């Protein structure tokens, strides 16, 4: 077949000419058509991921600006800038250049604070977005890989933030680095080697800041950028999930097209996120490094905490009792390994593997594009709340000395209390959430069968008082009837008919039991007969009410 340039229309506008130029080389028309026409569902909770994305862009932009003035060297200099209380004080180049940005570069402090606030927003938005995805079950097939990428993004974001606020080499963040080095050192077998290699010798050395800088401005942002791109391409390609509602099925997306509505809303939202971040950065101080002074390993401030997203790790380290084993000339510091490596390791692993864990328990192999209402997945929601409560207690424990001074309590009592609560609260949170979910499910079932209460009381001829119920709207029915009943897996038999042992018997049994526990108590969706019967009953009631003259029509 020969390639023939078909005679095409000459474009009339500049944009048309540009588009034609590109299309003549890339055949971009079909891609552009798909892109601009793409329908995205509309719900406010779908914008949480956007907050994260835009915060990342703001970080890249403000970060580039900072690199123009920041000097990541640990060489000692004498301060000679305009902040008087530090004049003549010895400090590293890193701290010196950060002071320079804060006081001698016009708008520098604003850029620094935009960068730092945006970092806090970034991790917060990723976390809240993760919660939304978890509680609505959006991680189920076919989106498991995107979930894992997301977990990776969260871990990288946390590490990147820690690296970022450690770069200015101030007293607060330097204390954090010291703690990080102590934890590295505590790793069995290789700890001291790792610490020496990372720091180029003992702490703090001279090599660490430049290395951290390369990691912070090149290595991790590069990986983040790559992962975010894949993450977004997957969302684009697989199409976004949507909540149940009228017109929405597992095979379609209902919403608005990218062009023009989503471009305006999402594009506008970028400016909103940037604007709010810049406003906060201009009005509210963050990380006033001049108060902390340059890092020296002989000074520390009361009330030293890491940035919020590391708070749970700090809290875990504060709570873990002083367990250490010494044997045969070697020491294992459980008091560091458990809170800093083992617990977070388990948590992130469980988080990353959760789609497969849940799929194994439920045996659900279907694609899901309609989101779950959290109440309908009662066990998952309760597990999530339980994990959140565990995280939350660790987080609060990180601020135990601030709590002590603000509320006039003893630190020691607070520490012991949280040590107890970390075991007591999560199971209670699980049980309470489960009950609430089931209660809501029953309420939904009630609404489907009996409609909603109108507030009107009717006295029947034989004397009984009843409240008139009206049927729920179609929109609500669409939502309530979207609930899917998944039957628990049958327990695998331990042996077949001939008595041959089932090699998968034990795992099968465990799986079956877990599956039963997962779906136990779930309130079933009313069957067709129940709904029909309920509809008839409602008819009778409304007839009776009409005869009484309580309502018109009918």
């Amino acid at each position, binding site marked *: 077949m020969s390639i023939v340039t078909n005679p095409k229309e000459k474009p009339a506008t500049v944009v048309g000419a540009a588009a034609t130029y590109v299309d003549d080389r890339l055949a971009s028309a079909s891609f552009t058509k798909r892109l601009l026409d793409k329908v995205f569902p*509309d*719900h*406010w909770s779908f*914008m*949480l991921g956007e*907050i994260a994305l835009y915060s990342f862009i703001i970080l890249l932009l403000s970060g580039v600006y900072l690199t123009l003035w920041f000097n990541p060297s640990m060489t000692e200099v004498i301060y000679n800038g305009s902040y*008087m*209380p*530090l*004049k003549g*004080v010895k400090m590293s180049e890193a701290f010196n250049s950060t002071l320079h940005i*804060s*006081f001698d570069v016009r708008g520098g*402090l604003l850029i620094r*604070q935009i960068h730092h*606030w945006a970092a*806090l*927003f970034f991790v*917060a*938005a990723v976390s*809240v977005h993760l919660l939304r995805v978890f509680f609505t079950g959006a991680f189920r097939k076919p989106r498991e890989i995107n979930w894992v990428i997301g977990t990776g993004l969260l871990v990288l974001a946390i590490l990147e933030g820690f690296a970022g606020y450690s770069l200015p080499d101030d*007293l*607060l963040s330097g204390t954090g680095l010291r703690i990080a080095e102590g934890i590295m050192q505590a790793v069995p077998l290789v700890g001291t080697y790792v610490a020496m290699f990372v720091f180029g010798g003992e702490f703090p050395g001279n090599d660490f800041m430049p290395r951290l800088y390369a990691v912070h401005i090149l290595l991790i942002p590069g990986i983040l950028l790559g992962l975010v791109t894949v993450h977004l391409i997957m969302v684009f390609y697989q199409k976004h999930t949507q909540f149940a509602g009228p017109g929405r099925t597992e095979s379609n997306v209902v919403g608005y097209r990218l062009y023009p509505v989503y471009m305006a*809303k999402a594009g*506008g*939202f970028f400016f*909103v*996120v940037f604007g*709010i*971040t810049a406003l*906060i*950065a201009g*009005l*509210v*101080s*963050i*990380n*006033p490094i001049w*108060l*902390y*002074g340059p890092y020296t390993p*002989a*000074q*520390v*401030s*009361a*009330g*030293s*905490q890491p*940035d*919020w997203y590391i*708070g749970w790790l700090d809290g875990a380290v504060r709570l873990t009792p002083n367990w250490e084993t010494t044997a045969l000339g070697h020491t294992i510091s459980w008091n560091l390994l458990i809170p800093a490596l083992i617990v977070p390791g388990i948590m992130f692993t469980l988080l990353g593997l959760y789609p497969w864990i849940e799929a194994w328990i439920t045996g659900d192999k279907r694609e899901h594009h309609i989101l779950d209402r959290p109440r309908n997945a009662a066990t998952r929601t309760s597990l999530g709340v339980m994990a959140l409560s565990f995280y939350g207690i660790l987080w609060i424990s990180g601020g135990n*000395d*601030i709590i*002590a*001074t*603000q509320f*006039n309590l*003893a*630190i020691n009592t607070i520490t012991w209390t949280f040590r107890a609560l970390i075991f007591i609260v999560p199971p209670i949170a699980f049980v309470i959430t489960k009950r609430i979910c089931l209660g809501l499910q029953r309420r939904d079932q009630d609404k489907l069968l009996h409609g909603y209460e109108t507030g009107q009381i009717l006295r029947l001829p034989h004397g009984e008082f009843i409240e008139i119920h009206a049927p729920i709207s179609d929109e609500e029915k669409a939502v309530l009837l979207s609930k899917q009943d998944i039957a628990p897996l049958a327990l695998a038999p331990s042996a077949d008919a001939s008595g041959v042992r089932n090699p998968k018997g034990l795992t099968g049994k465990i799986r079956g039991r877990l599956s039963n526990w997962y779906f136990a108590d779930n309130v079933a969706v009313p069957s067709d007969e129940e709904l029909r019967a309920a509809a008839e009953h409602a008819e009778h009631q409304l007839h009776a009410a009409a005869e009484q003259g309580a309502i018109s029509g009918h």
Partner: protein
Amino acid sequence: MAISRRHPAALLAVLIAALGTTGVAYATVASSSIPKAVAPSQTQISQGNDLFKEGCASCHGLAAQGSSDGPAIIGVGAAAVDFQVGTGRMPMAAPAIQAPSKKVSYSVDEIAALAAYVASLGAGPAIPTQEQVSSSGADLALGGELFRTNCAQCHSVSGRGGALSWGAYAPSMLKSSPKHIYEAMLTGPQSMPVFGDKTMTPSNKRDIIRYIEELQKRENPGGADLGRLGPVTEGVFLFIAGLGALIAISVWIGARAR
């Protein structure tokens, strides 16, 4: 249902009235000032002795030798008394792990008398003079270095205080006078250690005072300081105000326009 003849706010009014009456009655009855039993012609030391017997001896002993309720204060010096009584920490309202600063119970003259009396019991640090605590000419940067090395670990880099063990705390110095700061360093009140004049010279002390005065100005080039409590309040603000605003706007974006 029977019609209630009470106004909906009646219960609230009764509660407020009851609490108010109780409070006023208590304040009237429990007076915070110690009755003076001093004749104007007595010397300062004997005046101090009388005041001591009335207001301090019940815990510190008649000869200031101490008791189960309070330590011996022979040799603490006039500076210690001036600090403790001058900031209202003493007399302590009730035995506790720490005496908080509160409303001062004695007049300036009475404090001087008490200080003179205690100083007469044994040699101790004297009340610093105006010159000794004046920060003019002090080295601000050195003061900062000294503050961060010797004070920040308890009082925090912002000077707003910090937690100690078992419910004790290092208090905020954001409202303290130079004299009281000097006296505290010199006498080591309660949990605070003593910073002797040889290892922390009077000049060093003045440098520190100069730096604390700078902290007291509470100038924040970066914007509102959220109490200078560090990343904890920054995080709380982020979630409540920052993420709150963004989520509110998200809800607005997703809502149907009319």
